[in-house]
């Protein structure tokens, strides 16, 4: 038997599941990547705009405190801006560029300890502080990465969720495929294996699963039907030919060839076991006359009748045969004594003494002349045994005639 389909490395099940998973994961990754990049750039744009707004707001808010030289006023004006999500710090400088103060968020909210790449973070925005047309300082607003980090986290969660969904989907698709395609194909393969290995043309593959698989199974079954038909016809023809080659069609008894084979076989066995057997040779008396008088059809019927009368007299292991014309032979196996052969001869004569019905009006009695040869007493090969039996039969025939 082949190893099972499932256990092989590269089978349909794993190939389909793998390609589905690869395609789906690639799809999600590409989509997520594009989405992530787009979202990050969009977010970056918003962050830049936010920062510009924050810088303008900061410049407006610190204008009066700077004019009043009120440092805590600066802090108070800027703190709400810095405590928002998008601003990391605001540096305030005077007209000479000297830093007056730098405002940081009141509570240090780092969120993810994640170093974002430079291009994700908005550039610091510097905005001059103008009072009554004169520049009295500047604010520099540095953006935070909070929203970019949030974007990343959302994207990552999306990716994980997507992967999980793909995992479930892949398993579901693979199971479905297994049920509708792989298992039915394995069922077909298992049956065709048995058909081939055990020569069981009577087996049929199961018709389950997808339409295509069912159609394939149906075709295979039709093929098996035809093969089974052919096989049956061939067997019948073979049997008929065999019978025709080994049996005489008229008497229904084995023919000469078969008989000689059986005798040779029996000689071999008897030589080994020291057994003894008799070979009876028989010839119809006046059969030729009957043939001439009543015609071939009657002659054939007589031959068949002789066959039919001899057959019931045989014991298990004995073989009767028509050697040709009106010549018959019997192999009487396992002789206990010479008397056994004489007993068979006697019974044959008795059987033949009953007249045969030739047609509606006439009857005829066909007697047989019988000669016997005993193995191993009279010879140890079939030709000698036959010759001696033939000779003795002839002697009997001539003795009867005189």
């Amino acid at each position, binding site marked *: 038997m082949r190893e099972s389909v499932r256990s092989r490395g590269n089978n349909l099940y794993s190939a389909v599941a793998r390609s589905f998973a690869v395609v789906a994961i690639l799809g999600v990754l590409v989509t997520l990547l594009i989405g992530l990049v787009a979202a990050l750039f969009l977010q970056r744009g918003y962050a830049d705009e936010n920062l510009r707004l924050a810088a303008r707001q900061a410049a407006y808010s610190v204008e009066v*405190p700077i004019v009043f030289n*009120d440092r805590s006023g600066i802090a108070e004006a800027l703190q709400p801006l810095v405590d928002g999500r998008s601003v990391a710090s605001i540096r305030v400088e005077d007209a000479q560029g000297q830093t007056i103060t730098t405002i940081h968020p009141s509570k240090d909210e780092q969120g993810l300890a994640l170093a974002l790449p430079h291009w994700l973070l908005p550039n610091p925005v510097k905005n001059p502080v103008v009072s*009554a047309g004169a520049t009295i300082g500047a604010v520099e607003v540095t953006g935070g990465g909070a929203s970019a980090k949030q974007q990343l986290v959302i994207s990552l969660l999306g990716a994980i969720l997507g992967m999980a969904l793909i995992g479930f989907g892949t398993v579901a698709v693979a199971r479905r495929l297994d049920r509708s395609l792989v298992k039915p194909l394995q069922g077909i393969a298992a049956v065709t294996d048995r058909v081939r290995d055990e020569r069981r043309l009577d087996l049929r593959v199961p018709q389950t699963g997808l339409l295509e698989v069912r159609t394939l199974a149906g075709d295979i079954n039709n093929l098996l039907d035809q093969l089974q038909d052919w096989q049956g016809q061939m067997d019948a023809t073979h049997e008929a030919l065999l019978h025709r080659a080994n049996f005489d069609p008229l008497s229904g008894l084995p023919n000469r060839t078969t008989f000689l084979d059986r005798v040779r076989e029996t000689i071999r066995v008897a030589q080994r076991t020291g057994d003894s057997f008799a070979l009876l040779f028989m010839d119809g008396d006046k059969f030729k006359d009957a043939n001439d008088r009543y015609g071939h059809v009657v002659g054939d019927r007589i031959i068949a009748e002789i066959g039919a009368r001899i057959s019931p007299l045989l014991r298990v292991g004995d073989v009767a045969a028509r050697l040709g014309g009106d010549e018959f032979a019997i192999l009487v196996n396992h002789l206990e004594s010479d008397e056994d052969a004489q007993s068979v001869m006697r019974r044959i004569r008795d059987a033949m003494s009953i007249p045969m019905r030739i047609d509606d009006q006439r009857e005829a009695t066909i007697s047989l002349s019988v000669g016997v040869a005993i193995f191993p007493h009279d010879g140890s090969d079939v030709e000698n045994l036959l010759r001696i039996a033939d000779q003795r039969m002839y002697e009997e025939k001539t003795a009867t005639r005189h």
Partner: protein
Amino acid sequence: MGMAGVMLGLPAATAMMATAVAPLYVSSTLRDAVVPAAVQQLGAIATYARWTGAPHTLRVCITGQTPLSNAMTSQTLPDGRVLMPQRVSSAQTIAANCEIAVIGTLPSAERAQIIRAAGGVGLLTITDADPACEYGAMFCWRSTATGVTFDLNIAAVTRSRVRVDPRVLALGRRSNGASM
């Protein structure tokens, strides 16, 4: 802020309060060391104040007893307007002739007269002699440990026709305010 007296605005009541509660003279809240800072602060307030008619020259009328009277010199604001300080002795003419009134230590009746005159006209009032900022001036200087700051009298600011930038008001409104 004790605005009740100002709000009632009755001479009799004010006089009663003045005699009964407030001392007749309140000395300046400004230490000598912080006077230049106060002068500078006055310039900053003026920068963010707008008068109807947008006068180019802002007349600063100093009345009463105050260390500022010697320290004030004319100064040009960043937007080009000029602060022009001048000493006045008559309270009656202040509302008509000045944009800014610096009210030093004055008899309460005179002070009340200036405050009344300032209501509804374009006169910015600021005082260094009202630590509780309750007598009706819009701005009241107050010395702190490190400098000078100002309190606001919202009612007075509201009544006045001088418009002050809200960011200035936001600075002044703080109770434990900044220093200069």
